[in-house]
């Protein structure tokens, strides 16, 4: 497939461009947090607890008098980190298991697919909640556990790609030329199977951001003083009747982020998958 046709197709999709814009802005905000945040996100001020949005604090203050805008800006780093690391983990696991199953087939395939079926039977949020509650919440635990419970889709995708690709001529010729299995898997087949994986990874980031938000909301998220959108929402919930800004703004931040990744992911899928050209 031509890179040019892909970019052409992508750039004609206004929603996809919007998604790319949101994600880019988010990256910039996260990277430049120390320079754009108006206040130190840690500075507590017990005389300015729960101040509504105003001149001094554009988005108001939280329940310890900290500037909400600064905390939301710093919180973008957590979303970014959780999204990418969790998806990184799940993608790696998914690719490895999916390739093994798809390439070798037979009992390896059926064992791995049975395992996928098992994992799909779990209410994954329930499982994540249990493990986090038991091992203690920390940003690393959250990333790892989200990663460990969300690889099944990738595995299935990769397996399906492998099943069709391994019968292709260029693979068969590699096999007859005596290439090692690992080489065939990683050099010949995998690069050709990565397109759908890439799309699903972008969408996976969105899902991970939502899960992190929900976990932090239930009090099982990242630890203070680190701000995350989910844990700001927890105090938003505690103070919902008098501090709407604590609920509305971090919620909007999550919404925009997830929206951005979804638009980007869908746009990429449409651009990369010629079937959707109408």
């Amino acid at each position, binding site marked *: 497939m031509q890179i040019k046709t892909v970019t052409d197709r992508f750039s004609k999709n206004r*929603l996809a461009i919007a998604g790319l814009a949101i994600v880019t802005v988010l990256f910039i905000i996260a990277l430049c947090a120390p320079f754009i945040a108006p206040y130190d996100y840690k500075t507590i001020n017990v005389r300015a607890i729960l101040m509504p949005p105003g001149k001094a604090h554009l988005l108001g203050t939280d329940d310890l008098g900290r500037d909400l805008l600064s905390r939301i800006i710093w919180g973008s780093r957590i979303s970014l980190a959780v999204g990418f690391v969790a998806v990184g983990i799940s993608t790696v696991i998914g690719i490895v298991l999916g390739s093994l199953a798809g390439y070798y087939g037979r009992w390896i395939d059926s064992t791995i697919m*049975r*395992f996928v*079926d*098992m994992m*799909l*039977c*779990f*209410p*994954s*949020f*329930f*499982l994540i*909640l*249990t*493990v986090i*509650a*038991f*091992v203690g919440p920390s940003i690393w635990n959250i990333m790892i556990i989200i990663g460990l419970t969300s690889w099944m889709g990738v595995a299935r995708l990769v397996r399906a790609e492998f099943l069709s690709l391994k019968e292709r001529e260029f693979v068969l010729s590699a096999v007859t030329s005596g290439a090692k299995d690992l080489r065939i898997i990683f050099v010949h087949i995998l690069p050709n199977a990565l397109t759908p994986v890439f799309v699903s990874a972008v969408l996976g980031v*969105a899902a991970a951001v*939502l899960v992190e*938000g*929900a976990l932090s*909301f*239930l009090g099982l998220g990242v630890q203070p003083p680190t701000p995350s959108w989910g844990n700001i*929402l927890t105090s*938003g*919930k505690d103070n*919902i*009747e008098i501090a*709407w800004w604590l*609920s*509305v703004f971090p*919620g909007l931040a*999550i*919404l*925009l*982020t*997830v*929206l951005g990744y*979804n*638009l980007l992911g*869908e746009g990429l899928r449409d651009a990369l998958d010629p*079937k*959707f050209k*109408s």
Partner: protein
Amino acid sequence: MIPVLLGVTIISFSIIHLAPGKPTDIMTELNPKITPEARQRLEKYYGLDKPILVQYGIWLKRIVRLDFGNSFSTDSRPVIDKIWDKNLPLLDRKLSITLLINILSISLILLFAIPIGVYSSTHPYSFFDRVSTVFVFLGFATPAFWLALLLMMLFGVKLGWLPISGLKSLNYSSLSAMMQVFDKAQHLILPVFVSAFGGIAGMSRYMRSSMLEALRNDYIITARAKGLSETAVVYKHALRNALLPIITILCLSIPGLIGGSVIFETIFGIPGMGQLSFQAIMTRDYPVIMGLLFITAVLTLIANLLADVCYAFADPRIRVNKG
């Protein structure tokens, strides 16, 4: 099915039992009046002093007889009573409450998602398609717990139209049968809507792309070429085919829906499985957690089985064979 179920229970059991900490700590809290011996007594009472394999064996032997054991919480009621309390009316049992909400929300999802998806796919890039696409993306991106909070504020507090929490009003038992249904419906509106919201968005998207794909198939072209009316083409041939993947996705989403129950049942104060599981997790009530995981797994497997049946039923090839 059985091996999957067995695997699920082994994974759950080991995760729960290998995590640090013991449930008895909750009971003893930091009560300065409890001695180490008293703690050991408690551990023995709950069978936690045995090796984990033995514990699993005991659990498995019980589960065959559908006995989930007794809860570790101080009431030590059988887990099954907590989930399916025979002393309560059928619809008030925790399992039925959660199932009811999920069934209602799945119905709501299908009711909205299928027409939206079909219309979008038959009128691609029309105004409606664009609006629904925006809605779909927004719906996909909205955190359910956030939506719940906003709706509670709007309808519960500001407007006062809907009750804020719970499943029925305090004076429920003194209401007439008609009013009881009405009262319950009022309480269910927000939770069902919140749990369906993301699903409507997601499912209509799947429906749209599934339909688009179906409409591109050869047999559709054949059907059109045969001169069948567009309605017949869309609804008789394409829709049936497009529904197949939807059924699968729907069944796959069941564990997610049950997992999501944890959040909105906690927010809305609904005494269902979600609330029970959150409490069980926080108090390390192993038998309850195991029971809930097991039931969810069974439900999911049943759903998968149903999906296969539906699949067979909806598959046009099978119909051709029949006739």
